[in-house]
């Protein structure tokens, strides 16, 4: 009945007791408290329509609707364990059951799966993505700096490469996500952002690859995708001090070597 919480000395994350989904993140050091929801959705891939015969494919992202479909309203949270070392909440059967198994593809719908974070932050159509982990670029929805944009693809036309991070902010708070690989991302609505996790398509987009984007190539073989998003909530001024070093640590992470013999005595750098 009570809401579930994971807490360490820096953060407290609350999970809704009814849905099992993240409902709030609190930065305990800074006294920042942000209601947040995260959920998985999928865009139904276009196979061409009256406007254009263009299908969604490897080069072209073209959903058939502005609104992605919710995969599951509840997360069936079934395990919460934590101690001083580690805390983990396992969300049971959230997306594998319904979407990513793909076995047989009986529904014949291409699926483009996203993780979307929603917050009450006033972001004024602005969000930020990185340029190969270095410069951070400001992105504005339905806007190009050097010409007057006539937006014909309200979702795809606002997607940008996210090589390592994406964030939104208002005057005080910033919500940042580090990704574990290059993904696409956008902020389709104010206060929210999303990352494209996986694409499984059934049609070629006729842009050169000459294959539908469907790993591992056989429609009858499912695929499980495992990845990591690292989320930071902090003040705008302090956020770069968090995500910059953490990104280095993730992307140049320690290498683990194992041995059954005697312990290596070397410790100095």
């Amino acid at each position, binding site marked *: 009945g009570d809401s579930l919480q994971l807490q360490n000395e820096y953060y407290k994350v609350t999970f809704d007791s009814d849905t099992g989904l993240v409902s709030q993140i609190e930065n305990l050091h800074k006294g920042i408290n942000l209601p947040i929801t995260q959920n998985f959705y999928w865009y139904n891939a276009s196979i061409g329509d009256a406007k254009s015969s263009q299908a969604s494919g490897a080069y072209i992202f073209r959903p058939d609707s502005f609104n992605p479909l919710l995969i599951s309203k509840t997360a069936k949270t079934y395990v919460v364990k934590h101690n001083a070392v580690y805390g983990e909440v396992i969300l049971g059967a959230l997306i594998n059951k319904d979407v990513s198994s793909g076995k047989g593809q009986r529904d014949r719908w291409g699926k483009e799966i996203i993780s979307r974070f929603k917050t009450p932050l006033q972001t004024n159509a602005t969000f930020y993505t990185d340029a190969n982990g270095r410069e951070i670029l400001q992105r504005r929805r339905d806007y190009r700096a050097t010409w007057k944009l006539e937006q014909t693809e309200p979702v795809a036309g606002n997607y940008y490469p996210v090589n390592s991070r994406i964030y939104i902010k208002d005057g005080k708070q910033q919500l940042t996500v580090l990704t574990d690989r290059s993904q696409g991302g956008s902020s389709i609505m104010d206060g929210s952002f999303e990352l494209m996790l996986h*694409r499984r398509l059934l049609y070629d987009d006729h842009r050169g690859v000459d294959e539908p984007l469907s790993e591992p190539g056989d429609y009858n073989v499912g695929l499980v995708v495992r990845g990591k998003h690292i989320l930071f909530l902090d003040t705008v001024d302090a956020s770069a001090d968090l995500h910059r070093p953490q990104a280095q640590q993730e992307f140049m*992470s320690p*290498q*683990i070597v*194992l*041995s059954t*013999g005697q312990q290596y005595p070397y410790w100095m750098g």
Partner: protein
Amino acid sequence: KADSFTLKEAMAVAQHHDAVSGTEKQHVADDYAKRLAAGWSRCQVLVSNALASLSGIKQNVHFCNYLNVSACRLTEAASNFTVVLYNPLPRRVTWNVRLPMNGTSYTVTDPKGKTVPNKVMQVSAFTKQVRQDKGSAVNELVFQAAAPALGFSTYSVSRLTEDSLWRRLAQRAQKTQL
């Protein structure tokens, strides 16, 4: 043969947008993976030689290529082993080490012999599905390790048997009584 060139070469090929964003045919994707794996295989020999040279200890080391899907033959089977953590960054880092295991209780000691807190977590059903027959671990051992700038640190892991667990409990009970 030990060299890092094969991996450098494969990494260079993988800078192409096809490899980054997935706009390649499936057999090309498979080839990228093959090149990277061949490169990493030779780099492993290089790392082993470097470790032997720096530490003066010549022994076989083991790389677990499937830690990302919670599979590792060595940690699943061995009851005692050493974890070497190499840090390529020019500053000290702390890192959550996650190792696939089959036991339920472990002692972890840091390079100075001090006991490190650890936690044993269950391997999720998702993970078991991903790894298929690459491993059989039911649990994962998690502990926080530190490594110095551009250097390495070593941690020892020992599985606690039922006997040693009872002995520990008895010792603790005796202390409480005292």
